[in-house]
Structures are given as C-alpha cells and as structure tokens.
C-alpha cells in the first residue's frame, strides 16, 4: 500500500482526508504540527506528503525546506492561501504541487496520482512520451503530431522537454526560465510567454481549452497532456 503523510492542524480535515484516502486504498498517517511532520517524513519514509501551510509551530514553507534537505518525496501543498506569492514561495522551496482550499477530493486525488506516477516513472525517464497525437522522443529529440514531424527551435524544444519530463507538475516561471534559459533570466517571464505561445501554436493547443499546457496566471504552467 502507498504510504501518504497528511499534515494539517485541523482535526476535521485530517479525519476527512484519512477517510477518503483510505477508501482509495492508501495507508494514511496524520500529524498536526510542522515538527511532527519533519520527524514523520524522516522516520516513516512516506511516498507522498500532503501539507498544509498554516501550521501552529512552523511555517509550511520551512517544513518543505527541511524535508527537502533529506528527502525527494513528492510534496503537495493544501492551503487556504491563494496569493500567487505564497504559491511561488512554496513551489520554489521544493513543493511539487499546490491545491487551494477548499478543494474537491477528486482534484487532490488526481494531483496525488500524477505526482506518484512521476516518482515511479521518474528515473530512468522513458525515451518516448506519448500524449494523444503528440509524441516526444527525448532520446532522439524528435517531436511528431499524428506521425508528421513538428519543427521546433532549440529553445522551444528545451521548453517542451522541461514540460514533458515534469508532466502534471506545476512549474513556476522562475523554474522554467532557469531550466531552459539558464540563471540570469529568472525575471524575464515574457520570454517564457512568447515561447509557450509559439509552442502551443505548433502543437495545436489552445489556451482557452488547453489539452497540453495549462496556464496558472502569475505562477507558471502545468503540462496536462
């Protein structure tokens, strides 16, 4: 059974999450403070952490940093804070995803499954990623839609690769800029917009009805293919 650590100071949320997750076959441990969370993450070696940011003792962002110092376990933040600054801070500290409270359980379960998939398929990454008509062969740097090749510039390809190898993960502007353009470009988010737009066009994706790249305004993008 997959072990999930739920960190939240509200007993009602802990109870609801435990009931739902156990019903879906997960093994659940719940804790109510940041210190307990860090200890549990170290001792129990959970496969996924669901973390509330507003804890009584530590700030959730600090919990993420401390857990990241010894573990690569996927961390999904569940928080009532909906400002993009809070999201970006948590993601930059090492969180994998961010869900705003109040949430629907099915949404959390979907994000949780995506994170677990990434982890299992994580390393070594398969050379070919398929998303419906789209095929990205990372080994041969080849992109096709319905079998016909798509010509991408070097930067467009680097961006696409960053997306498909982190499918389902909410990627901040900063992270993508560092990954694709390198350090020193972290503030140039309009570069990113221009390239995301042309990538969408070439792959036949639409921003208002996205099938591949989902925009999280002010925060970043998520590959949902």
């Amino acid at each position, binding site marked *: 059974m997959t072990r999930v650590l739920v960190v939240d100071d509200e007993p009602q949320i802990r109870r609801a999450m435990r009931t739902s997750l156990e019903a879906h076959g997960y093994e659940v441990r719940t804790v109510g403070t940041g210190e307990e969370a860090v200890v549990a993450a170290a001792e129990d070696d959970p496969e996924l952490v669901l973390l509330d940011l507003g804890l009584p003792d530590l700030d959730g962002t600090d919990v993420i940093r401390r857990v990241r110092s010894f573990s690569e376990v996927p961390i999904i933040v569940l928080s009532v804070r*909906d*400002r*993009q*600054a809070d999201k970006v801070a948590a993601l930059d500290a090492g969180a994998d995803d961010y869900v705003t409270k*109040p949430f629907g359980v099915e949404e959390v379960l979907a994000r949780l499954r995506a994170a677990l998939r990434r982890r299992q398929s994580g390393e070594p990454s398969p050379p070919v990623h398929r998303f419906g008509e789209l095929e990205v062969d990372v080994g041969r740097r080849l992109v096709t839609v319905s079998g016909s090749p798509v010509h991408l510039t070097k930067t467009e390809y680097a961006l696409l690769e960053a997306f498909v190898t982190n499918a389902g993960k909410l990627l901040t502007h900063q992270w993508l800029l560092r990954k694709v353009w390198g350090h020193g470009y972290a503030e140039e*988010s*309009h570069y990113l*917009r221009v390239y995301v737009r042309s990538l969408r066009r070439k792959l036949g994706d*639409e*921003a*208002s*009805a*996205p099938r591949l790249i*989902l*925009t*999280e*305004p*002010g*925060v970043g993008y998520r590959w949902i293919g």
Partner: protein
Amino acid sequence: MSDRWVLAPGGGSRARALVISVLAPALALGLALIVQPEHELGAASMFLLAVVAASVAGGIWAGIGSSLLGFLSLNYFFTEPLHTLRVHNRDDVVALVVFLVVALLVGWVVARAVAERDRATRREREARLLNLIATKALSGEPLDRVLSDLAAALVDALRLASCEIHAAAAGRTYEVRRTRPGTADGDAFDVPISGGDVGFGTLTASPPLREELLPEDRRLLEAAASQIAVCLERARLDAEIAAARLEAERSQARAALFSSVTHDLRTPLASIKTAVTSLLQVGVRFDPAQARELLQTVLEETDRLNRLVGNILGLAQVRSGALLPVKDPTPLDEIVESVLHRLGTRLAGVRVRTIFRDAPEVPVDPVLIDQVLSNLLENAARFSPAGGEVVVSVAPWRSGVQVRVADQGPGIDPDDRERVFEPFTQLGVSGPDAAGGSGLGLAISRAIVLAHGGRIWIEGTPGGGTAVVFELPVRDAAPVPQEVAAREAPS
C-alpha cells in the same frame, strides 16, 4: 434722545451751529443796511428770514442765537437813538419784543419740523438697511458673499470709512472688509456678533477720520450684528443637519450591509445544514439518487459560500489597503483564457466568444484580475438567456488595455449602472437565476480595478444586454483612491 442729531443733521457740530447763528443775522444786517437803511420793518423781515434759514441749517440753537442777534441788531441799528442799545420810542420797544418772541417761535417751529423730517428720513433708511440685511440673510447665497454685501451696505448707509466682519461658524472663517475709497479710518467701533451663548466674531465699523459715530449709528450696527449672528447660526445649524443626515445615511447603509451579509452567509449554511441533517436522520433511507441530490446541494452551497467569503474578504482587504496588488507584466488575454478554462462547467449554459486584438502586456496582479474576470463572466452567464452569447474582448485602448464582457441578458437601466457597484446591490433579481449571486462581485471588481489605477463601468449593448468594461493602464499606475472613485461617473 438725539439732540445732536436734531442740532446737527448730516453729522455737523456745535461749532457749526454757532457759526450759522452769527453768520445768518450778519448777512441779514448787511442786506438790510445796503437796501433799506431807514426801514425798520424791512430789516425785521430780513432778520426773520435769517432766523428761518439758521434754524433749517443749524437747528434750534442756531435759531435762538440768530433770534437774539437779530433782536440786538434791530435795536442797535434801526431804533432811535441809533447806534445805542437804548430805545426812546415806546412803540419801538413793543415792536422789538414782538420781533424777539416771533423770531424765537418761528425758529423753534422750523427747527422742530426739520428735525422731524430728518428723523423720518433716517428711520426710513434704517428700515431699508435692516430689511436689506434680513433679505440677504435669507437669500441662501453663499455666506461670504452675503457678509460682503452687508458690509458694503453699512459703509454706504452710515457713510463709514470702512466696515470689517471677522467671524467663524460651521468650521469656516469669514474675513470681510469693505471700504469707501479715499477715506481714512477714524476711531473704530467694535460690535460682538453673537447669538445666545455662542460668539461668532466681531463687526468693526470705522467712521472717517476725525468724525464720530452717532448713537443711532451704533444701534444700527448692533442690529446688523445680530442679523449677521442669525445668518451664522443658520449656517451652523445647516452644517449640523447635513452632518447628522450623512451619519444617518451611513449608519443605515451599514445596517443594510450587515443584514445583507448576515442573510447571504446564513442562506447557504441553512441549505447545507438541512441537506446534511436529512442524510443523518436515523431510520430514514434515501435511494441513491435522492442522497446524491442532497449531497449535490451541499457541494453547490459550499462553493457559493466559498465565493462569497472570498469576495467579502477581498473587498475588505482591497478597500482597507491591506491587499496591495503584486504586479507583473501580463497579457490579459492569458488571464481570460485561464479563467474560461477554470470556470468550465459554470459557463456551460452560454456560448463564450473571445476577441483578442493585439494588446500590450499590462502590469497586473494576475490573481486579482482573475477574480475580476471570474466575477464578470459568472454575472454574464447568470443573466444570459439559455444558449446566449457572451463576448469577451481584449483590445488596446489609448494608454492601456480595455477588457469588455458583454452579454445578451436583460440589460441594466442607465440609472442603476453606478448603483450596482455598491456592495450587496442586486437589481430586482429573484428566482433560480439569482442563485449564487452575492451582490459583491462588481463591488470587489471595482475595488481591484481601482487598486490597479484603472476604471470600470457598465454600458448597454446594441442588443439591449449589459457590457461591463474595464481599462487598465500599461504604465504602472498609482491606485485610484477607493472612496473618491466610487463616486466617479463613468464616461
């Protein structure tokens, strides 16, 4: 009693009376000696004329003085023996005595008549002045103008060198000074302006140099001062009434707001509780469809409550300045697309069409503008007929970007287009269409747009629907003050 007034109409003096009482008989004597040196009767007539003239010009004392001088002159120059004050002829003695008595009587009667006429003239002038003051006081003209006109009227009527009014009422001070050109100020006379226990200021009247104010003048100034006090008192009361009315309106608005919030928060809670307690009833079995329906209610009402709380908190934060936009140059079409994707099923009943003209990026807080667009789109969908079209356009506009959300709903009366931006305003909406509306969406949208230095308003559409339009500046702009802009008319 106004003996000075009687003696010296027009503000003369005792010296003048003395001069006249000498001058008039002297002139009469000269004339009598030149024209008819031997004619006693003619001389007496001349002197009587002098007495009348002196009484008119100099008052009763001038009349008495000229009578005596006339009597002595007749005796000295016209009765035997000439050039002495002795009288030989008994008839002459009688004539002289009769002359003196007649002269004194005529002088007295004439002087009294003249004084009476002067008093009447003055009373009429006073009445006119007081009437003018009272009319001015009630005219409703701005108070500083009223005071200035009053000062001018006093300068005119009392032939003052200057008149000043220094007063304060209803949080304002009034400084008025009117002068008569080319006249230096004499000794100033101060009259306090006060009504009841309240002192408002001072009325200062200065006669021309080396002249004095008559007691009548002072009384008139006091009457004017009390009229001015009435004006100021009225201004004070008006200000108090206006303040009280404003406070009453505010507290009424607060009460209405409070009761709306209470109602809007309790309604979804009531639905949730009803649904959940139904499900928890012991011994009642719902079939799966019924149970699902109850749970669906819980879910919808929770979402509604969540949106409402989000809007209430957001409005309070933005309005109090606690929530400052974290601005980042962003293409607005990107936010529109993201909102359309997120709202998804909530816009299922309408067809959404987007028109994106090449608009520049704008420095905005994406989360806040997302909230604005969500509110506008949800409103548009809620008031649209089934299958109606909602058009969202983003276009460059002067030094900014204009976003327009137009629906095919029933439209909003032009008179109500500003009012709907007030919190908890829902226009005659009832029935299922109104569900989910909190009456806060437009209020928070305006607060957010203002915090970005932009503006938002409502227009009609050619098809009779509603278009909500907002503009955001391309250059990073200072926020528009929330209070001021709430009253700003749309263009």
